[in-house]
Structure formats: C-alpha cells, structure tokens
C-alpha cells in the first residue's frame, strides 16, 4: 500500500460485511435450533466415545457431554452421615416412624437399573439405584384411609416433592442408598435420596429427610415454578423423551 491511502479516509466505505456476518450468525443460530435433534445425536455419540477415553474429565464440562449435573436450590447443604442422618415418616399414618441409616440399610433392598432423564435434557443411560422401596416404609407406618398422597422433604431445608399414593407404591420408587453400586455421595443427594424411576429426575429429591402422608398431592419446589406434578418421562413438561421405564 502506498502512503497515498492516507490522503483519503477509507473508513465507512465498502461492502456491508458486518451486517451480513451479523445476520448470518443469527440465521446459523436459527438453523442449528431447527437441526438440533440431529446435531445433538451426532455430538452425543462422538462425545460419549471421547469421554470414555478422556482421562482429564474435560469432556464432562461440554454441553451434553454425558454424566450428571449438580443442581441445588439451597445456598448450602449440610453433610449428614450415619451419626446424624434421620428419615421421618409421618402425617396421615397410624405409627409415625424415624429411621437412621443403619435401620434403612438393614431392610430388604431393591435394585433398579434405568436411564436417568433430566427435564433440562441430559440423560444418563443404565444407572443402577439400590435402596428401600417407599411402599415398604409406608406399609410399616400404616397409611390411614384419608391419606392419598405423599409429600417429601429434604434436609437442604428448601426442596420438596410430591407423589400420589399409587405412584409412591410402585416398586421402582425407593429411598435410594446407593447409586452405580457405590454408597450415595453427598453431591448426588447422599446419604439417602428419593428415586422415582419413571419420572423426570427433579422428582427424585436429593437429601431426603421426610416422608409425610397427606390428603392431596401438594406441588413441590419446581412444580410451584411451573413444572408438571405428574412428571412421567416422555409424557409431561412438553417433552417427548423416550420413557425410562
């Protein structure tokens, strides 16, 4: 370039590339939105394979890179263990009961292996949960005739969930004590969480501390904020995921 270019101002002249790039970016975003189902399947296959051979764990940080994501609605969640964990069963029952971890572990356990599906989209295939069916705890306490629903409370002090009595009596609804054949860690809702196999994972309340029999299903934490109370995977919340059960 000769120094003569300085004599005339080149700024503000030429093709409107900026506008084209801006509109192109928006168009690409819209196209990706439409093509998302196809793109997502492709990426998940690729990332899943990469994650299997990834010693750094970095692929876990990528969107939909597989695995669980940590969601907590509380500011901080206390850790509880064998010494101070308690599960209370009360409400419309004949005999309110309190269990500690040893008591729960001493009961007959059931094992369920299903996909975990979050309502935000992530899915973890073939995850095993082991614990005490809620049905067994309800039977031990004796549900009174007017009790038709369950309210679940948590020792994070904030989260709540609910199920109807028939839902809670399914054999794939349990107080889970272990996941993937390891004792449930704090980050996954340990030492004990609710596990509701056929429903979106927000139903599976972490850090479970209370099972209260009520007259009617009371909407839980996210349900007050618009999520469906009957959260069957693939048949609620406007989603069409493959059912987990």
């Amino acid at each position, binding site marked *: *370039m000769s120094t003569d*270019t*300085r004599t005339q*101002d*080149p*700024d*503000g*002249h*030429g*093709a*409107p*590339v*900026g*506008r*084209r*790039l*801006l*509109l*192109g*970016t*928006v168009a*690409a*975003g*819209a196209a*990706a*939105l*439409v*093509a*998302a*189902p196809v*793109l*997502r399947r492709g990426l998940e296959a690729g990332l899943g394979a990469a994650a299997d051979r990834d010693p750094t764990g970095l692929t*876990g*940080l*990528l*969107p*939909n890179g597989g695995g669980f*994501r*940590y*969601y*907590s*609605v*509380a*500011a*901080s*969640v206390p850790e509880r263990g064998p010494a101070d964990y308690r599960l209370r069963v009360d409400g419309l029952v004949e005999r309110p009961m309190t269990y500690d971890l040893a008591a729960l572990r001493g009961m007959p356990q059931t094992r369920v292996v299903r996909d975990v599906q979050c309502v*935000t*989209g992530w899915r973890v295939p073939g995850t095993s949960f082991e614990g005490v069916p809620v049905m067994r705890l309800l039977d031990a306490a004796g549900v009174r005739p007017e009790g038709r629903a369950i309210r679940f409370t948590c020792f994070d002090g904030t989260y709540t969930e609910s199920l109807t009595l028939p839902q809670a009596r399914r054999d794939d609804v349990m107080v889970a004590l272990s996941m993937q054949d390891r004792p449930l860690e704090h*980050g996954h809702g340990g030492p004990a969480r609710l596990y509701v196999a056929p429903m979106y994972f927000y139903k599976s309340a972490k850090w479970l501390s209370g099972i209260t029999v009520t007259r009617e299903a009371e909407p839980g934490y996210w349900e007050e*904020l*618009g999520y469906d109370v009957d959260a069957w995977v693939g048949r609620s*919340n*406007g*989603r*069409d995921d493959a059912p987990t059960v």
Partner: protein
Amino acid sequence: MPRPSEARPSGARPSAQVRRFTPAERWVHRATAALMGVCLVTAGCLYLPPLAELVGRRRLVVTVHEWAGLALPVPVLLGLASRAFRADLRVLNRFGPHDGVWLRSALRRRGPRPAGKFNAGQKLWAAWLTGAVLVMLGTGLLMWFTRLAPLLWRTGATFVHDWLALALGVVLAGHIGKALGDPEARRGMRTGFVGRWWADSAHPLWRPGD
C-alpha cells in the same frame, strides 16, 4: 511497530493524544461488558459442577442470569442516541480492500496490517458478537418462557444456548487476552484518548476527527 515520526514534530503537546472514544461510547462498552460478565459468571454457577456446588441458590442465580441477559442489548440500543457511536457502527459494518489485506496477513501471521479506526478482526468480532448475543437472547427467551414455545424449539434452544455459550466464552477470552496485550488500546477504552504513535502504528488508515 511505531513508524518514524515524519508526520509530527518531536515533543508534540496535546496533539500527541488522539480522541478515540467519547464518554457515550465508553459507557456502552463498560455496561455491555459488565452485563456480559454477570451472564458469564452466573452461567458458570449454573453449569460447572464445582461452581454449582459452591454457590447453590439455583433459583436466584437463574433470575440474575435471565435479567442480565435481557438487559444485555440495552446499552447498545441507548448508545444509538450518540452520533459518535452510530458513526462507529457504520465504520464497523463496512469492509474495504484494506480489511482483506489485514485478514490475509492475520491468517498468515505476517505481512502488512492496514486498518482504519477498527481493524478487520475487530469488525468481525463486533458483528459476530452482536449476532451471537441475539441468538443467545432468542434461545434464552425460549428456555425462560417454556410454556410459550413448541416442544421441538425448546430442546433445540437449550442445545444452541449451551454450545453457543461455550463458543462465546472462548471468543471473549480471546477479546480480553488481546486487550491485556495492548495497554494503549485499553487506555483508549478507559480514558477515551490514545497516543498518536499508537494510532499511527495500529490504525494507520484511521483519520481521527481532531
């Protein structure tokens, strides 16, 4: 590389400073950067497991993220009231032959880098960022008001929002990295003035108004 100072007398006084940005332009940048920072930090707290575990309070973080995102275009829209800002947008939009030269040199990592007030890289950055923010805004609104959108759009919106956030994070890191590497460019954004030597070397085709 600063060029020999044939164009100006040595020991030049105020004219050694060139006005690069008016207060309005700098406030648009500052407010946009602050809102983008809030979006990024809250996104990290929602998305990265260690941060999510540390912070919790998911509902509060979501609310802050949503409102910061919604407010993100506001500074630019208010900036349209400023003549200088509108002039910048015009300059950012138009690509002349020198921009092609700049891009080719940048890709080859050698050669001349002719640039007006903004170099071609800055122009691409501005245009792409604006488009990306609009896409984030659209997909974010689809995720926010879940009841309004058809099912297919919502899952698609989550997908696009997640991946574009990642891309934005990388590109923003590049933007900040470039700024960290150029104190005089930062001074231009902080005070509104740059040294004429810097303008001559980094933006040789730029003809400042004063």
